[in-house]
């Protein structure tokens, strides 16, 4: 077995020119090893300088792919990132957050990946690099299906970009599990929104995870609620079945399809309310 530990991006990308298994925090990698069989060639990207840490630039925030959930929780992001931070706190446990990374969460592409819905509501993009190219892909287009992402064998996810948000943006993330801690989501909802000085919903992004092969935005519901009075929504948010498009919740050991279907509506209402309350607090 060859085990490569590049410390800078150019050597990391060079080492990807020969097929290899990428590892970072290994928190998805180990539990999924079958019979302890380890791939022959491993490139560990957890210490690649350019892939660790968060920087604020003019077009937005760059979160290095190998940034751990703990670093994301500790970073002084504006309230627009509260949903992402809340999701980070839900990834496994403290020890898992200390080593598990944002790129690992996305690339593992579990339908229940907690990091993905908040990133969808932030219109985040994935920076994908190989030795001779760099491209930016929307998270939405990058995650193709369970365990399937738009990544060539010689490419790495080097960063996640979150475009600049308006000052008054707030966000929220709620996860439904069968117990409080260390649990895989039955359903989760992320919401990012802002409220105008007149008290109207200016924009509203909603994403639902664990209820379809890939987490999805809810454009019909977003459109329906945009422009409404935020305070009215605290009392009553009508969500009809047709507002939640593209959800195909499965029946599995964690819950039935019907249960997920009704739980997700409730969860959407609670998450939207939570984000509105936060927004009214800061304005």
């Amino acid at each position, binding site marked *: *077995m*060859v*085990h490569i*530990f590049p410390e800078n991006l150019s050597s990391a990308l060079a080492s990807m020119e020969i097929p290899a298994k990428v590892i970072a*925090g*290994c*928190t998805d990698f*180990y*539990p999924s090893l079958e019979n*302890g069989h*380890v791939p022959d060639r*491993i490139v*560990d990207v*957890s210490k690649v300088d350019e892939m660790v840490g968060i920087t604020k630039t003019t077009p937005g925030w760059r979160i290095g792919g190998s940034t751990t959930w*703990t670093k994301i929780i500790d970073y002084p992001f504006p309230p627009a990132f509260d949903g992402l931070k809340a999701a980070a706190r839900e990834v*496994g*446990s*403290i*020890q*898992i957050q*200390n*080593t598990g990374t944002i790129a690992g969460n996305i690339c593992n592409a579990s339908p229940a990946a907690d990091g993905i819905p908040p990133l969808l509501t932030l219109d985040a993009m994935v920076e994908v690099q190989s030795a001779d190219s760099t491209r930016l892909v929307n998270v939405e287009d990058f995650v193709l299906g369970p365990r399937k992402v738009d990544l060539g064998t010689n490419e790495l996810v080097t960063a996640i970009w979150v475009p600049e948000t308006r000052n008054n943006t707030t966000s929220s993330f709620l996860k439904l599990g069968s117990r*409080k*801690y*260390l649990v895989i989501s039955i359903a989760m909802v992320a919401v990012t929104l802002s409220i105008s000085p007149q008290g109207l919903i200016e924009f509203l992004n909603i994403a639902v995870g664990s209820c379809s092969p890939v987490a999805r935005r809810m454009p019909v519901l977003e459109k329906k609620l945009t422009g409404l009075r935020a305070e009215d929504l605290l009392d009553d948010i009508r969500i009809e079945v047709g507002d939640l498009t593209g959800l195909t919740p499965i029946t599995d050991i964690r819950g039935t399809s019907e249960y997920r279907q009704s739980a997700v509506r409730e969860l959407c209402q609670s998450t939207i309310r939570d984000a509105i309350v936060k927004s009214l607090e800061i304005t």
Partner: protein
Amino acid sequence: MATVTMTVNGKSVSGEVEGRTLLSDFVRNNLNLTGTHIGCDTSQCGACVVHVNGKAVKSCTMFALEAEGSSVTTIEGMANPDGSLGTVQQAFQDNHGLQCGFCTPGMVMSAAALLEENPNPTETEIREYLEGNICRCTGYHNIVKSIQAAAAAA
């Protein structure tokens, strides 16, 4: 096989490992530090928690080679230099924070990491921090009490 070198409990150690050797197996088999327990193969139980460069991690979720050059503390490193129990360990003993003891090394390591970050945690904060440590015996009550006592004693 490759040679890995790291600092464990303040001493520089090195050993021959296969690429696939986990840090948990390295400390147990190569270093004979069997206080670090292995309770699952899904990174869930937390019996194997050690500190790597000051952060609590599950040592079954790291190759030994990934810890090259790191400073690692295991449960054996929690005792005082004269071999007597350290503050957190003593608090677990005094407050009956264990029954079978299988989860205890991991509990103590997580508790120590918590107290490092937050010297005066509330009960809720303690329970939240221990989400990655599973105990099948105690019902957690006395574990929480032990950590509160350790906080008070420090």
